[in-house]
């Protein structure tokens, strides 16, 4: 079964679509404003990662044609979501213990209660857009985004859903910066993966795998889908010297968003007319993205 990327969305400062990922990040660009796309309603008590996730979900579902004028065009039970975020709610958690230590639980905001659970982005996304299929949150470190793609693909192949929205998103704040020891990308990307490799395909999904070491993963990717010219990898080491490499480091630490942003960048690469496979590498996880089959 060939799985297709049928919808793509990008939300990073200065980068609002897949092609923008192929270029260097613009320093000092304004932060993403989710209210500009989805309005203010329902966002007030959501944490930053959830707001960004809702923005990305709207854009990707719309791009895939499964959301039109606020209504789903496919059965809601066949549409699932997988979110990758390592740092999404760490600010809520840290703020809460600080408040409890200084005062007591009476000083906490009851509106923060849902945000204390790490699956808040996925559950809010499902509630807002009516996604009743499987709902999964991956918090797996550096490889998290590509892992999310892999689990979405698995659930599509076993028939648990027909379409899965995969969102990789991280927030930039004092806690996340201190945790990763540097700036954090305030945003991410989302894809819709579909069982039906329809005319909407922006990329096809090749093998997604994990080995013990990044170099082994890189070797297997090129063996399974030879002839690629683009590598999406933060690290230089496992990438062949002559290959074109895009690191995607200009927005700060992408953490759990990385793998999803890499796949979005591959879709941007194909949109510019390239045809060879693109390889994504995050930690020891890897994925091959293939150009959509274009009808002559």
């Amino acid at each position, binding site marked *: 079964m060939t799985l297709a990327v049928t919808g793509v969305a990008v939300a990073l400062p200065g980068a609002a679509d897949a092609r923008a990922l192929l270029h260097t990040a613009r320093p000092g660009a304004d932060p993403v404003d989710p209210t500009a796309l989805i309005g203010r309603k329902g966002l007030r008590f959501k944490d930053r990662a959830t707001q960004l996730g809702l923005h990305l979900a709207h854009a990707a579902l719309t791009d895939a044609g499964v959301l039109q004028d606020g209504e789903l065009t496919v059965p*809601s*039970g066949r549409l*699932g*979501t997988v979110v990758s975020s*390592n*740092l999404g709610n*760490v600010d*809520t*958690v*840290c703020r*809460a*213990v*600080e*408040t*409890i*230590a200084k005062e*007591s*639980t*009476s000083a*906490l*905001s*009851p509106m*923060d*209660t*849902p945000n*204390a*659970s*790490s*699956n*808040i982005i*996925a*559950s*809010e996304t*499902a*509630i807002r*857009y009516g*996604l*009743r*299929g*499987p*709902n*999964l*949150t*991956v*918090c*797996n*470190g550096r490889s998290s985004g590509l*892992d999310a793609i892999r*689990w979405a693909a*698995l*659930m599509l*192949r*076993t028939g*648990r859903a027909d379409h899965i929205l995969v969102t990789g998103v991280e927030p930039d704040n004092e806690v996340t910066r201190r*945790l*990763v*020891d540097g700036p954090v990308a305030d945003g991410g990307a989302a894809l819709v993966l579909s069982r039906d490799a329809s005319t909407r395909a922006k990329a096809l999904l090749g093998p997604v795998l*994990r080995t*013990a070491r990044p170099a082994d993963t890189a070797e297997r990717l090129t063996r399974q889908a030879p002839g690629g010219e683009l590598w999406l990898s933060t690290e230089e080491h496992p990438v062949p010297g002559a290959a074109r490499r895009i690191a995607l480091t200009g927005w700060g630490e992408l953490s759990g968003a990385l793998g999803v942003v890499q796949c979005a960048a591959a879709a941007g690469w194909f949109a510019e007319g390239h045809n060879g496979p693109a390889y994504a590498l995050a930690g*020891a996880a890897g994925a091959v993205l293939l150009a959509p089959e274009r009808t002559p």
Partner: protein
Amino acid sequence: MTYPILGIGAVAGIGADPDAIFDSLCAGRSGLAPLRAFDRSRFNAQQLFEIDDRQTDGVDEPGRATRFLVEAIRQAAEDAGLPEDLAGIPVLVGTGLRELRTLELWWRDGVPLDSDGLHFENALRRHFGAIDTHTFAGACSASLYALALAWDLLELGEAETVVVAGCDVVTESMFGQADRVQFDPPSSVRPFDKDRQGTILGEGAAAVVLSRSAPAGRPVRGRLRSVAVNCDAHHQTAPDPDGVEDAVRQAQAQAEVTPADIDLVVLHGTGTPLNDRTEAAVTARVFDGPGPALTGIKSLTGHTSGSAGLLSLIVALCSLDRGLVPPIAGLAEPLPEAAELRLVAGEPLAAPVRLAQINSFGFGGVNAVAIVGGAA
């Protein structure tokens, strides 16, 4: 298709392995106790179901979720006869709160942590040499969601054997937020009782080894018949009867069984007014007539969040093995929606159990339902 469960492992406040936990459930032993490591002056609620393992009373330690996880996996791997090195075996972990308790101690008290310490990858590599490891943060149904993904790996032939686990310790932020919204904290957890007042968090870890086939001559703990997953897409804390019913019916359809085939349901049963009412109503709708025996474990273990589903599944396997169903402790008079249901109360029920259904429902309407059968 069914897959054999080769090994089980678990730790909870009421026991350090599956047998001890099952014995405590049958004997009505509770793990509820006054707060052990949080500053009691900061909370209205004063009780939790903790695992009493800290070196110094009143002083919390980082890394406890990982500690319990590693112990549950160690037990399950040993029970399954796996080698100590799990390099070729995927390990899938469902959790509600990851190592967020360690994050809290890092932020407030300066305990060392980097972002990789939030999930379990490095610990699983260190302890078991495991490479393909995954942390899923799926609230209270997380471990059964992980079980569903393990099923999918086996189904597609991407793995021969998978270790599935769940773990959680109580975070101060989650306990604090619950304390903020629960003005009158419950004194106990009483699932399906008409006087239930709410839930209390607990700590625990559980693990199973699932395989495409059992090695010749090795006894198995039971067979996994199906795991269904979906989402209500309805409300953060209010479960949706239709979503829950869909998950139950999907699980039964995938297992190719009818409601009449099910002998036991281990209910999610958190003891909150809304959850129990919804679960009782859906159960009454799905099962005609007297229906199966129904039990739940949270009155004695507390709500163990990410490990809850797998812990219930292990209890179901023990019931299959022993022909004994532990009662729902603290159940005096059932809520009206459960009046006709066969809730096991008072004493353990001695009855043959061939097929059991396990319910697990999480924050955000994330539902998972599994069906397991006996070893035969």
